[in-house]
């Protein structure tokens, strides 16, 4: 029964099959370009996550990529635990949102994104100095600055109370649609206003605890006095006049703050404003957004504006988030393609609008969206939140110390602890010495315990540890001995 295939029949069949294969249309599968997983920061503004999801889905449909998004909350530091776990396991999301210090802390495991950052900068304008400081290492971009979660923690003042008690019209100082007229908005004016509001029964709500809001405010005030604990080269600069001035300023300020400020956490200042007990807090507009929902009469008197300037300039705390890709990610190309898509101005505007203006883009050309001018009440309350006229330096506490040292100063709240000890009566020298010892040990940790990223650099650090100098101190300090 078997039918023998002739040579002629075989050639004909082969030719027909080949022709059919060549001429047939290419049917591309829905997920032809593979899978991509991402861990994004779980936004606390209701509905803000949806904007990110919609944008990712739009991109996925266009690029035929199967996507999966996990929204990871920062409550309880769950995002930090995820970062640590993925770094340990060398496995995890293809894209992971990392706050402030974490791209540097994991720099050895980060996929460089220079190939997309350079075109993005050309397209969207320069990024601010803090983004460069936190996102770059030796010319290597560790991540793409994400607008989602990035924030400035500037003053949010009560219009009525500031006018009545401190004789300051914050709306006139920071008008909608026009540059700030804040030449007189200095640390001295700020201190006088703090005193007046304290006397009037509505103290400024600035905390002195160990959580980020407290540390960020202290960081900006220290920087406005030019006070650094460690400079950019890693020199200890604790015992300087600038640090003494900053501590003295804080000593005067603490007298006008709530008595329990040393126990404040990141929620305390929000409650302080929403409850109507204070004339000013230092926070992104989340407190105002809660007030809009829970205490509208308070919200309509809130005005977000710039920081007061000190002898060395006007600094405001800026805490950027980054979208990063691990060097062990499985789909780096798709990840980079998505990051470029999410960094386009149209996409950024969608996300910023969905967050009610909370999220801040880091690129220069993306700080003038309509949302900040339109949000209210009162209308325009967020106009100056993204610092549209660049009249302040966006910075992070403990900078410009090398980021791995600065992270230790920041995480251990060295600045607020120094201020509190100084206020409680420890002598200036002892206090500065304490900071010095502590920071010197941190520095020792960095060099002796070697967190240098490349082997050659590590060996150099171990063989010839860099000398540590106290700038402004008579004491010549060599390599730390751990006193």
């Amino acid at each position, binding site marked *: 029964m078997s039918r023998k295939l002739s040579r002629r029949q075989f050639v004909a069949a082969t030719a027909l099959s080949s022709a059919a294969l060549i001429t047939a249309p290419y049917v591309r599968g829905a997920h032809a370009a593979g899978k991509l997983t991402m861990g994004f920061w779980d936004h606390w503004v209701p509905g803000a996550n949806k904007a990110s999801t919609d944008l990712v889905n739009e991109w996925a449909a266009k690029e035929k990529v199967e996507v999966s998004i996990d929204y990871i909350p920062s409550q309880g530091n769950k995002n930090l635990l995820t970062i640590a776990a993925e770094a340990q396991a060398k496995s995890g999301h293809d894209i992971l949102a990392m706050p402030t210090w974490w791209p540097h802390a994991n720099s050895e495991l980060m996929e460089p994104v220079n190939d997309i950052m350079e075109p993005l900068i050309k397209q969207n304008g320069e990024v601010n100095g803090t983004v460069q400081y936190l996102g770059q290492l030796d010319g290597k971009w560790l991540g793409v600055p994400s607008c989602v979660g990035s924030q400035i923690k500037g003053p949010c003042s009560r219009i009525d109370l500031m006018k009545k008690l401190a004789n300051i019209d914050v709306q006139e100082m920071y008008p909608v649609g026009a540059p700030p007229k804040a030449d007189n908005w200095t640390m001295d004016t700020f201190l006088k206003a703090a005193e007046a509001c304290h006397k009037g029964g509505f103290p400024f709500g600035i905390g002195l605890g160990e959580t980020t809001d407290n540390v960020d405010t202290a960081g900006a005030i220290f920087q406005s006095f030019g006070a650094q604990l460690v400079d950019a080269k890693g020199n200890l600069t604790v015992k300087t006049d600038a640090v003494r001035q900053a501590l003295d300023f804080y000593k005067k300020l603490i007298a006008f703050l709530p008595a329990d400020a040393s126990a404040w956490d990141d929620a305390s200042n929000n409650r302080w404003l929403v409850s109507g007990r204070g004339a000013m807090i230092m926070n992104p507009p989340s407190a105002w957004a809660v007030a809009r929902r829970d205490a509208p009469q308070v919200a309509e008197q809130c005005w977000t504006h710039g920081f007061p300037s000190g002898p060395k300039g006007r600094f405001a705390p800026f805490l950027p988030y980054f979208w990063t890709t691990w060097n062990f990610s499985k789909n780096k190309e798709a990840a980079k393609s998505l990051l470029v898509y999410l960094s386009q101005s149209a996409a950024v505007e969608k996300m910023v609008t969905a967050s009610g203006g909370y999220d801040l883009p880091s690129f220069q050309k993306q700080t003038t969206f309509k949302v900040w001018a339109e949000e209210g009440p009162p209308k325009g309350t967020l106009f100056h939140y993204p610092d549209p006229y660049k009249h302040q330096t966006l910075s992070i506490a403990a900078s410009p110390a090398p980021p791995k040292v600065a992270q230790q100063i920041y995480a251990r709240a060295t600045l607020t*602890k120094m201020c509190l000890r100084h206020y409680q009566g420890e002598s200036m020298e002892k206090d500065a010495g304490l900071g010095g010892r502590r920071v010197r040990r941190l520095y020792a*940790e960095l060099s002796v315990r070697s967190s240098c990223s490349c082997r050659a650099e590590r060996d150099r650090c171990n063989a010839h540890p860099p000398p540590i100098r106290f700038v402004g101190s008579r004491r010549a300090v060599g390599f730390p001995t751990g006193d």
Partner: protein
Amino acid sequence: MMVDVAFQPNRVGGAARKRQSLRVALKRKSTAAFLMTLPLILLIGILVVYPAFYSLHLATLNKSMQRFVGLGNFQFLFKRDTFWLVVEQSCIFAITAVLFKALIGFVVAHFIHNIPAKGQRKWRGMLLVPWVIPPAMSTLAWLWLFDPSYSAFNYTLSLLGIGPIPWTGDADWARFSVILVNVWYGAPFFMIMYLASLKSVPDQLYEAAAIDGANWWQRIWYVTLPMMRNIIAITTLFSLIVTFANFDIVRILTTGGPLDHTHIFATYAFRIGIEGSDIPLGASISLFMVPILAIAAVFILRDINKRGNEA
């Protein structure tokens, strides 16, 4: 052929013996017990033993986890004032909390024991409530009670003209607050253990003591306490371990402040390891609990063994 015939029964016999010995082994109580506990042993192996050894390994690495530094992390910690403050605070926290938990548990267990059997169950249930609520949740309620600006306690005290008390703002008050919450949470565990122990003390002993003219205090000292010794020792050890390793109460109430005065090993390890991105140093801090607890365990359990031999 003959060889085959002679060989065949032998082979069958060997297999049968094997099957039989397997059956015997399976029937043995110890084998059954082992098999039944095997899932738990595996679970402990994966979730406890492996992480323990892994953290030992981590504690020997440098900050970037690329180089072996031996005991370098511990040497580094020993030179730091904050670390010794954490050791001091951990000891104060654990010892004070366990003492008060034991004391309150003992007293309350006696009260419950003396309640007629009919109403006892109700009281037992109510007094166990703090222990059955996850501390992460109940501590949030305490946080509101201690809130720096809106403390319900301070509000109540202000009606009496007292306060305000800086519950979490002053180092001593903050220490008191975290210990208080831990005692509130843990005392019911002691109470229930002591109650079970009290119920097992034979009544004849009390009758004999009463005949001998023992007063209330003597009955407690010479009858109740000796009979409860083992339970007290085991409960204390167990609680000491759990309290030393506590994390949630301090983390939620004070996050270690003010000025690091309420940090205990776990919260400080988290601060350094996770928030400061120095996992090896964080692992070293948390491992420092092991020798302290090992010494405590040796002392407490040695006493139990002695009495066991005497019995």
